[in-house]
């Protein structure tokens, strides 16, 4: 699956480039409220550790529940872990502002490009969709035409990036205060829908592990949007 590795690197490079361009264009040199350099560095370290731990824990849990051996990574699990790490860090650092918009363009590119790698990796990557008779169904080599759910996710994220880039210059304050929560809402919302098109084991109430993670993120986003709205008013 070297093709996946190559797209992981491309995803990282595109994430860094788009992120740098966005920050420089709109003078977002550091997340709002994160002041000293050292605090910013430890904040990044906390996010990274949350991303890695969440990614491995939930990815591997889903793989284990599916009765397959190995270790797995999940971007959704990573986003969940990073958000938990960020909120814990912010609580102890006394930061009350939204700090996430700074990372959104990079995250979008990471997901959008990374998912193309998942699509090209095919069946061994265990990220394919369920069987479909729709004309755009893709045969990954086992003779079954499947939903290219990886591309659905990639496309949704790119559309969100366009909306962000078009809308940000007109409403910068809205995006700075609430943009990250809007991103989480859209990301978790679309993943929740695509999860119904995946062959993952169901754990509770007809939903898989990632459905439940998505629901947790949607609730988080709605709560934070409401809270930040009250803060703005």
């Amino acid at each position, binding site marked *: *699956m*070297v093709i*996946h*590795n*190559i797209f*992981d*690197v491309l995803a*990282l490079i595109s994430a860094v480039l788009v992120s740098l361009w966005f920050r420089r264009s709109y003078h977002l040199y550091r997340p709002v409220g994160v002041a000293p*350099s*050292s605090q*910013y*560095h*430890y904040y*990044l*370290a906390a996010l*990274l*550790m949350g991303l*890695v731990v969440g990614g491995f824990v939930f*990815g591997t849990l889903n*793989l284990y529940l599916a009765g*397959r*051996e*190995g*270790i*797995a*990574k*999940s971007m959704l699990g990573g986003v969940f872990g990073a958000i938990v790490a960020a909120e814990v860090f912010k609580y102890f650092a006394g930061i009350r502002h939204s700090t996430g918009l700074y990372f959104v363009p990079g995250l979008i590119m990471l997901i959008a490009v990374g998912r193309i*790698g*998942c699509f090209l*990796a095919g069946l*061994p*990557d*265990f*990220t394919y969709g369920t069987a479909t008779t729709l004309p755009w169904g893709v045969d990954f080599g086992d003779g079954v035409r499947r939903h290219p759910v990886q591309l659905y996710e990639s496309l949704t994220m790119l559309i969100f990036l366009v909306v962000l880039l078009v809308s940000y210059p007109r409403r910068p304050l809205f995006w700075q205060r609430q943009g990250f929560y809007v991103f989480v809402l859209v990301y978790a919302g679309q993943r929740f829908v695509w999860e119904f098109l995946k062959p993952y084991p169901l754990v509770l109430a007809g939903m898989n592990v990632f459905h439940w993670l998505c629901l947790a993120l949607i609730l988080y986003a709605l709560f934070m949007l409401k809270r930040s709205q009250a803060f703005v008013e």
Partner: protein
Amino acid sequence: MPQVAQHYSLIFKIFFWLLWLGGVGVFLVFAWFSSMTMGEGGFGEGASLIGPWNLLITVAEGAVLFISAVLFGNRDKSASVLFLWVLLATVVIPLIGFGGCVIQ
């Protein structure tokens, strides 16, 4: 402008070098992968790309370990910056190196 020499606490020094040694472990693992996939008997189907990939990761890991050790020795970077460098070696590079959503 001359840089101010940084003072690192003993706990940070121990933590830094433990993580750095973890990075050396990653380096050795990928060096071994490289030798397995690029050496004799490793030219089978799929080995043509995985070999150079492992070599690339080994070189990147070695470079980051070298830079982080030099930065530590120079004492002109803050502990938080050094921490990010060593995390790059022990977490980010192996994460990219193993690639894919499923590692079997």
